[in-house]
């Protein structure tokens, strides 16, 4: 049991140790690499002087605001398309035409319309989050047990009542899976926008560290961004297990 637990850790630890030794043996001087000890030291300094916490706050704010807007739009459209087959068929070509636009291609449009800052980043994140939410909510709503819909008709529920009392509760586990995927996408898009152009947050921080030729700080940012992505993923998976148990896992691999 204890061996099974340590196995996954052996490879990264061995690699880090080997790299540390190699860097010390040849007295590494580089603009792109730094030994793990230097990276950890840079990470500790940047955490202590609050530059990384502030950047993290900016990135997470933009990512979550975009996620909230994008997934709300995606959810509403997904439910509407899932309930009404004619509406879905009418909008099919429009959705198919807009969806393949890579979110990052909207960056220049958002830039001239909104300028640098939170707003343009939030818009791009929101655009990226609409699609997974729309597609997965639509299929979740469509796969609701038909008898439940018959019950709602027999009870003469109005459309809003039907959505609130039958559709959303029945589709919720799979909607949460979609939300989890969208949250990952939101973080990726936010960091990408910051790296490409927007001068706020973690992405801008890592670019600045690179331009200042601070390899240790740059890699510290990289490790930190990775840790944030990992923590967000773990948190959402735990929430999903807690809230829905096995019901959500069933929707994970449709």
């Amino acid at each position, binding site marked *: 049991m204890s061996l*099974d637990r340590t*196995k*996954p*850790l*052996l*490879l*990264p630890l061995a690699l880090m140790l080997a790299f540390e030794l190699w860097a010390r043996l040849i007295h590494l001087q580089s*603009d*792109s*690499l730094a030994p793990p000890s230097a990276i950890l030291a840079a990470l500790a300094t940047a955490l202590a002087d609050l530059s990384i916490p502030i950047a993290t706050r900016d990135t997470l704010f933009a990512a979550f605001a975009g996620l909230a807007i994008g997934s709300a739009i995606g959810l509403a459209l997904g439910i509407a398309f899932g309930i009404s087959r004619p509406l879905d*068929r*009418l*909008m*099919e*070509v*429009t959705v*198919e*035409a*807009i969806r*393949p*636009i*890579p*979110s*990052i*291609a*909207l*960056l*220049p*449009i958002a*830039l*001239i*319309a909104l300028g640098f800052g939170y707003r343009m980043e939030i818009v791009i994140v929101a655009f990226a989050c609409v699609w997974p939410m729309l597609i997965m909510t639509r299929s979740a709503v469509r796969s609701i047990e038909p008898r439940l819909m018959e019950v709602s008709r027999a009870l003469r529920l109005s459309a809003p009542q039907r959505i609130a009392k039958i559709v959303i509760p029945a589709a919720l586990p799979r909607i949460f899976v979609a939300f989890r995927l969208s949250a*990952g996408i939101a*973080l*990726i898009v936010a*960091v*990408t926008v910051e*790296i*490409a*152009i927007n001068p706020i947050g*973690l*992405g801008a921080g*890592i*670019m600045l*560290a*690179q331009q200042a*030729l601070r*390899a240790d700080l*740059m*890699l510290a*940012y*990289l490790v930190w*961004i*990775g840790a944030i*992505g*990992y923590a*967000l*993923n773990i948190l959402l998976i735990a929430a999903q297990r807690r809230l829905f148990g096995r019901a959500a896992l069933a929707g994970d691999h449709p």
Partner: protein
Amino acid sequence: MNRTAILWRVASVLVAASFIAAWQLVADLRLVSPVFLPGPDRAWAALVRGFSSGDLAGKLIGTLEHMAYGWLAASIAGIALGALIGSSRTMRAYVAPSLEFLRPLPVSAIIPVAIAMLGLTQGMALFVIAFGAIWPIMLATVHGFAAVEPRLYEVARSLQMSRAAIIGKIALPSALPDILAGMRLSLTVALILSVVCEILAGLDGLGHWVLLSARAFRSADLFAGVILLGATGYVTSIAMSLVEQRLLAWQTAAR
């Protein structure tokens, strides 16, 4: 397609056309400043102008090249590494958790590191695109190899097949649906990273084109570029589904 399906399709196209008409109306009435929002007529004119002067075609080819080279490199390396890791139980136990740990990392965060190592070059773009696109393919391959029906392996052992034969004749074909799904996912990743690299490194491509157009407030050219990027995403994904259908035809037939 039967008649009702065609009718629905026509109606759907009409709805899309009415959205474009609404866009034209908004632009004509100048509800939004034309600096930000050109009408579809101006965007189309910019598209035609760009192609007839050859500028835009060159940029499109540039982006397609970045995307294709990076994606192909990622596919070959991803399937090979995934097969290596997935076909051995020991490798899976030691290596797969590290891969899962790296998966949620926003791959664009590797761009500054690549710039520090390789400079603002084509090589940098290729490295970043391949690095970003390899994950979905490699993880899908590992997963596909791990999920092969165990009795097939027993058959292979009783036939005394070599390890290479097992991989080529049993594991790869049955992991193929997973691998193709991973390749489709990384096609999108490759397109996005191509655009980001072109923006950052000023490489010849649509990403650079849209950024320059935005800086010069040439909104019609900008929209033409964005439309072309959307078309690129659409066409590559359609092509991928055709390949998928063809390669997996045996599977649906067997079921």
